[in-house]
């Protein structure tokens, strides 16, 4: 089983400035929220591809069955958090 901390570390290895929030109930299905300046100017598909790349091996091996991804640029994240 992979821990949320490991997932966070893998994403930060790919995106060093990323702020990452990882949720899981069973160690196989994950939800992550990633905020990184690397997403600026990219479409949603490319943003998610960057996140998936970080955990590619674990997805291919089946260690991670599924991961729901939410990505934000730092600016977009500020809008989200200030709106709440």
């Amino acid at each position: 089983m992979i821990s949320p901390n490991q997932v966070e570390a893998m994403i930060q290895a790919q995106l060093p400035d990323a702020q990452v929030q990882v949720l899981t109930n069973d160690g196989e299905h994950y939800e992550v929220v990633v905020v990184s300046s690397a997403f600026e100017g990219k479409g949603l598909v490319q943003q998610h591809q960057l996140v998936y790349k970080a955990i590619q091996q674990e997805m291919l091996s089946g260690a991670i069955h599924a991961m729901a991804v939410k990505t934000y640029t730092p600016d977009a994240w500020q809008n989200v958090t200030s709106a709440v």
Partner: protein
Amino acid sequence: MTPETQARIEDLVKQNKIMVFMKGNKLMPQCGFSNNVVQILNVLGVPFETVDVLADEEIRQGIKEYSNWPTIPQVYINGEFVGGSDIMIELYQKGELQQMVEVALAS
């Protein structure tokens, strides 16, 4: 991926304006994420085609490589990869998906 598999995938995404690669079918999705996509498209009331990747191992692996995307479901609109369940939900909530499918179906 074999050239045959690639040709089959290409054909599917070109021949169908809205193409969904999913687990199960429209009536019986076999995964919650695939179900999300089917429900969204049903709410929009648009025609779409599906392929059950559980019944076709070559497509199941091939589509991941083709889209450079590791998970199922995968949605193509007008021949372009749009994303999986999360992106479909986000585009739907923003009202952008409605617009995309209208443009695709009108073309």
